[in-house]
């Protein structure tokens, strides 16, 4: 195999399995994450997300199958991969006698940064994560959220081309989450490959360019959010917001092409359109009939399933089979 190009930071897993005693944590997992992609890895507790991540970063080397990162075979060429890797573990921990400054200086130097470069980068990442005021604080005095931010700071410090983040947004306040999501998107646009796991599906939906769903050690779905949604049919649901509700819409429940109508809150209707009917025709008739029945329409939107719905549906389907 020739030397891989420097800008290649793709991740390729082929038939990766990992067993802890009798327990099969990963079962023949295969997927590819291309350079510059943001890969959201989701799944229930104990699905094998952290095991996959530990294999990718080289902390678990005893596994079956093939793993290649940026063209380097793992775990054999681990030292090459570590040069381009930034990693945030789940429940990140540091030696508590250190201050933030001391921890980052050590990690900067260990990652190959020079003294001045380390100093500059520490300033930049602390500014980015709003941690500048805590720079000389002891780690034992940090809150959970600050500790998490420090974990991110050490992962970003040496400007890695591959970021592997295990639950990076857990324990953070909404403003910090927003800020970190923006940072991840910015890094991805600059060519950094980001692989992250999360339980907060709305965050995955916001930033992931590709999503993998893992259940009981197996990949059950993989693709972009749109691809996952298209594989998952919730029927043709339509949301109607009324500016005036005459209450007569109930008469439309038995209307041709409509499976049912719900009113979750006043003036808001969810119309379940029969999947076999032509959505455009039914919508046209629906608008006309609502007006005839004395309702005034403010807005009309076809509903798209959220990642939460897609995830639950796929996981439940797999559990049932």
């Amino acid at each position, binding site marked *: 195999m020739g030397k891989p190009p420097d800008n290649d930071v793709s991740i390729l897993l082929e038939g990766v399995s990992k067993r802890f005693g009798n327990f099969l944590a990963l079962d023949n997992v295969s997927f590819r994450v291309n350079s510059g992609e943001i890969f959201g890895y989701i799944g229930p507790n104990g699905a094998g997300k952290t095991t996959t991540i530990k294999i990718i970063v080289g*902390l678990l080397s005893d596994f079956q199958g093939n793993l290649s990162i940026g063209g380097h075979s793992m775990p054999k060429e681990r030292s090459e991969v570590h040069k381009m890797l930034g990693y945030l573990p789940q429940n990140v921990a540091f030696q508590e006698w250190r201050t933030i400054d*001391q921890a980052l200086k050590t990690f900067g130097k260990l990652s190959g940064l020079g003294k001045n470069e380390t100093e500059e980068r520490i300033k930049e990442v602390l500014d980015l994560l709003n941690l500048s005021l805590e720079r000389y604080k002891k780690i034992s005095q940090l809150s959970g959220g600050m500790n998490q931010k420090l974990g991110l700071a050490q992962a970003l410090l040496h400007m890695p081309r591959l970021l592997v983040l295990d639950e990076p947004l857990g324990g953070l306040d909404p403003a910090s989450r927003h800020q970190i999501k923006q940072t991840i998107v910015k890094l991805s646009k600059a060519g950094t490959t980001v692989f992250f796991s999360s339980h907060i599906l709305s965050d995955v939906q916001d930033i992931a360019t590709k999503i993998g769903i893992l259940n009981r050690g197996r990949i059950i779905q993989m693709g972009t959010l749109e691809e996952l949604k298209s594989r998952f049919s919730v029927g043709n649901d339509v949301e109607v917001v009324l500016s005036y509700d005459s209450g007569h819409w109930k008469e439309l429940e038995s209307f041709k092409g409509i499976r049912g109508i719900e009113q979750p809150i006043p003036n808001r209707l969810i119309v379940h359109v029969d999947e076999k009917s032509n959505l455009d025709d039914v919508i046209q008739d629906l608008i006309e009939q609502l007006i005839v029945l004395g309702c005034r329409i403010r807005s009309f939107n076809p509903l798209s399933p959220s990642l939460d719905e897609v995830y639950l549906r796929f996981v439940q389907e797999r559990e049932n089979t």
Partner: protein
Amino acid sequence: MSFALLMKDEIRGFYKSKVMIFLWIGLPLLTMLFHFWSSLQGGGIPFTALSAIITSGIGGTLASVMLTVSIINEKTQHVYDLFLVRPVRRWNIILSKFLAVYACIAVASLLSLLLGLIIDYINVGSVSGTVLNDTVLSLATSFSMMAVSSSAGVLIGVVSPSVLVGVILVIYGGNQISALPIIPTILNISNATLFTITFGTVTTSIMLVLAIFLFNRKQL
């Protein structure tokens, strides 16, 4: 580069834990107190011999317990993950920890012995060749015992699943092993110093190699 950096960091951590202050100031003071108490009892154990027993006994035990607890805690909290995903070799982590702690207790031991020599000089008026010989032997004995003790602390830290198990093993196992280098002196064999140093070096090396081997194999 990473080894020197890690060792410097470990010494700093040891310093921050305040144990170093106890070792460097407390141990010589404790030795001196024992010496005066022993003189009052009419025992008159040479200070140098006393300091070797105290520094290796207390300092060695303290060092091994510290190493065990520190390694187990850092291992269970996955502190090493952040080091191991960088271009750092696993043995650097273990050896830097051992050397940092050992260097600190070696300094404490030297300080105690230096104080012993000064006090013996003040009491007797001169330092005889016998006293100097005793000092060298006591230095070799205490350094060897502390090295064995510290390496036992590292090995137990690597293999123990919990702090409680680790501390029990160190106190009941590590201390017994650390007494091995004193055997040539007890048996009064000729060249006891050389045997003590050899015994201490070999035992320490075996335990460190074993600890590094197991740490390398461990899926942290």
